[in-house]
């Protein structure tokens, strides 16, 4: 025994002290159980919610947006995979040289990157969005903790400004803003998927809380557009606008057999890959703008006169003395003529001749003809903001209006409507619907005129590009061309503006069996020349010269252009 007996007896270990201490310890354990019970039953919802803020992630799985192709499956719009780099600033461990290297790779200022790193309260900060995959790969190869890469898509338009108005473009959230991208957005975008999962602190998926909903990719679209034709039209239209200092221009090329739009071009244009400073440039004016077509309406008048009146191509009409009084108004021809046949009225574009034919017709009949040809109503081609044009009800027509409408004044159309109307002359009186989608078989048309009348008008249109006509410059070597020029004063707020014009030309080729129809419109030329035959017809000629050969369309005409004999002055059309 270590303790001495005397000492031993003095040791007192009071039992109450032991009990007090034990009770104290056990009470503290009770406290723990109470706290644990509170946390794990009563307070759990709050804590679970707090936990989800850290570890639960709901992400939207982006579908792959459908591609847009031209009729030959050349891409017009594709979504390229790009990488968006992001970080969790609290987890990032980056040395100063590394920071500089990353900034250099991403073409950022190191200071900017440093600022983003300071956002410690956030768990998700984009370093840079939409980085080229190879650049992102180089950054990821540096293996910096807390830096991540996520796949995104960037819309790319290979045809750039050439097809901008038709294709349109998408916004930051990958939805269509203009053009086909907007109109067919539902089909192209597909449906997004969803994922709701628990992740660990490094971002790895631990478990899915809800079954993953996979995204459904958007569908591809095949347009009727031919990228090469589109390019040729764009090139020639740009040249014309430049040459004539025009404010704007538009052109539509249709497949004469199917009504498919092969090209649709507007100037000015913009780059859909970088749509900035685009105000006023994005309108596809061939579809959304209306204008008074002028003399390009005369063939419609002649056809109606032959179909519903007592006219034949050889019917003689007195156009002397070059003007016609109707009530208090007078209409003029540019050059006074004598007696003209119906064919010559078209060839020389006589307003008087056209008006006389129109006045011989029942006005309801004429109005109905316009409607039958699709004027005054949308073509339903499938494009956002399509205009309907204006054709007033026949009951409100006065005789002077009936007369001016016959040569395209007092009536407003879109360039697309005008081009479509000419399908009746290319297809023996049958009007075709127009479309921007590639068709697998020709559509069913609607008979507006008899084949005999339609072919007769087509013959007259061939005279227009012959000596004595208004559009010699529309000729294409090796092919027969049929077409009609138009020149009109623009309609301003105070009526017609005497120094602002729209020069146009609508033509088809080869005339023996038309394959292509093209309508060209040059808006406000400012270089002295403004007749459709002078400014619009050459565009037709230049485009067709290339396109006909590219499409290997058989020749049906002379190998040499027919020139105007020296003694014959160039014919200017009336306005």
């Amino acid at each position: 025994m270590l303790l001495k007996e005397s000492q031993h007896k003095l040791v007192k270990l009071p039992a109450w002290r032991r009990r007090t201490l034990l009770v104290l310890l056990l009470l503290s354990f009770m406290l723990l159980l109470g706290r644990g019970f509170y946390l794990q039953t009563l307070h759990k919802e709050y804590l679970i919610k707090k936990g989800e803020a850290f570890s639960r992630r709901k992400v939207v799985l982006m579908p792959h947006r459908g591609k847009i192709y031209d009729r030959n499956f050349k891409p017009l719009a594709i979504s390229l995979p790009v990488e968006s780099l992001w970080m969790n600033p609290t987890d990032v461990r980056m040395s100063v040289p590394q920071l500089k290297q990353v900034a250099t790779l991403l073409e950022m200022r190191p200071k900017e990157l440093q600022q983003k790193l300071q956002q410690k309260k956030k768990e998700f900060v984009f370093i840079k969005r939409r980085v080229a995959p190879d650049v992102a790969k180089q950054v990821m190869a540096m293996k910096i903790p807390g830096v991540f890469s996520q796949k995104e898509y960037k819309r790319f338009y290979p045809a750039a400004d050439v097809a901008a108005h038709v294709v349109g473009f998408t916004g930051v959230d990958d939805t269509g803003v203009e053009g086909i991208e907007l109109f067919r957005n539902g089909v192209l975008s597909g449906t997004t998927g969803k994922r709701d999962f628990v992740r660990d602190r490094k971002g790895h998926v631990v478990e899915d809380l809800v079954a993953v909903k996979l995204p459904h990719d958007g569908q591809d679209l095949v347009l009727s557009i031919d990228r090469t034709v589109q390019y040729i039209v764009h090139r020639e239209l740009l040249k014309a606008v430049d040459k004539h200092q025009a404010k704007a221009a538009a052109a539509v090329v249709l497949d004469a057999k199917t009504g498919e739009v092969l090209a649709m071009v507007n100037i000015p244009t913009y780059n859909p890959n970088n749509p900035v400073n685009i105000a006023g440039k994005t309108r596809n004016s061939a579809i959304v703008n209306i204008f008074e077509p002028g003399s390009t309406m005369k063939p419609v008048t002649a056809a109606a006169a032959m179909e519903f009146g007592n006219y034949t191509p050889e019917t003689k009409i007195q156009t002397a003395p070059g003007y016609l009084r109707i009530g208090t108004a007078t209409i003029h021809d540019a050059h006074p003529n004598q007696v003209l046949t119906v064919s010559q009225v078209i060839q020389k574009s006589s307003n008087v001749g056209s008006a006389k034919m129109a006045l011989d017709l029942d006005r309801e009949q004429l109005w109905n003809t316009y409607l039958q040809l699709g004027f005054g109503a949308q073509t339903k081609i499938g494009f956002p903001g399509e205009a309907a044009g204006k054709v007033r009800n026949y009951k409100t027509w006065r005789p002077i209006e009936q007369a001016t409408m016959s040569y395209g004044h007092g009536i407003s159309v879109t360039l697309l409507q005008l081009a479509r109307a000419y399908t009746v002359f290319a297809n023996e009186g049958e009007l075709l619907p127009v479309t921007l989608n590639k068709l697998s078989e020709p559509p069913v048309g609607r008979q507006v005129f008899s084949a005999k009348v339609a072919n007769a008008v087509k013959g007259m249109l061939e005279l227009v590009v012959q000596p004595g006509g208004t559009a010699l410059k529309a000729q294409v070597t090796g092919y027969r061309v049929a077409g009609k020029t138009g020149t009109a004063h623009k309609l301003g707020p105070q009526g017609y503006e005497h120094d602002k014009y729209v020069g146009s030309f609508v033509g088809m080729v080869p005339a023996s069996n038309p394959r292509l129809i093209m309508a060209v419109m040059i808006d406000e030329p400012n270089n002295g020349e403004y007749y459709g035959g002078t400014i619009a017809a050459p565009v037709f000629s230049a485009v067709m010269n290339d396109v006909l050969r590219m499409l290997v369309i058989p020749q049906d005409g002379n190998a040499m252009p027919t020139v105007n004999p020296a003694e014959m002055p160039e014919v200017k059309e009336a306005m």
Partner: protein
Amino acid sequence: MLGPLMMTRERYNSPSYDISLIWVVLSLLAFGMVMVYSASIAYADASKMFGHNSTYFLMRQALYIVVGLVAATIVFQVPMAWWQKMSPYLFIGGIVLLILVLIPGIGKVVNGSRRWISLLVMNLQPSELMKLFIAMYASDYAVRKATNMHSFTKGFLPMLGVMVFVGVLLLREPDFGAFAVTASIAFSIMWLGGVHIKIFLGMLAALPLAVVGLVVMEPYRLERMKGFLNPFDDPFDTGYQLSHALIAFGRGEFWGVGLGGSVEKLLYLPEAHTDFLLAVVAEELGFVGVLVVVLLFAWLVIRAFSIAKEAVANERYYGALLAQGIGVWMGVQGFINMGVNMGLLPTKGLTLPLLSYGGSGILANCIALSVLLRIDFENRRLQKGLNS
């Protein structure tokens, strides 16, 4: 007298060891090992420092337990009389180690605290051994100074002086948790040894002053306080660790998400395998798991105190005080650790005895409980009329 009663056959044939204590300790060790593994898989797997080896901590913890059990077996052979005789020397040895650990080059710094001495095979944490040595020293002191225990100057003051010295050494590391535990052990033994009740009442009054003093000395403690009161006010910085511990408790609900199913251990909750092991238990095994752990600790404390009661009956005062000191150690350290996990107490670096990962802790706990088992063993022998 009880003599004839004690010599009954049943009493003689009863086991010489406290079998249930052995089983409870082994259960806690085994359960701790499973939970350490579960809590550390993702952490070890993700870290280059641990060779991306998911069993890194499991293997080491298993080794520590083996070392601890071997040490416990050896320690069990040592009679209490020897421990009592050696108490002052062991205590001096402990103080030497606490001084050594503060010397740069010998003491190893981890997370800003100089607490470890590298011994090639494993790191020794002197403060863990000090908890046992202070219990032995205080018990011996109370028995030696039994006549003067009621006196402030002769009984209490010398012990207070020693404790202040040890406290200064521990706070130099700093290791506030070990300081709290050693102080609790020493003052509990003083209390049990008969220090005058007025002294304790005075100390109770001085406690708030001491807390203020500590905060003034190390302002970071104030930050910890604030973080502990409202962890979700700043869940990315000062409240980060506790936020995630509490989230783990909430996620566990009553029955737990299942063993291995913790999300918070997936790199969100730092120190999940050491100081915050209970949070992982709470998440994976729910309130039921927490309840079992708390009850086992309560059982340990009750058992230590009843062994002490037996020792008092046998007039083995040193053993009685030491048994209670060990009980207070397990109880207070367990309470502080669990309280920290639940946001009842401010965060301090303190492991859960027998469960948390750590070589020194496991070794010290095994030795201490082996001593407790020895006290009980000697009680039983005395009751059988044998020599201790």
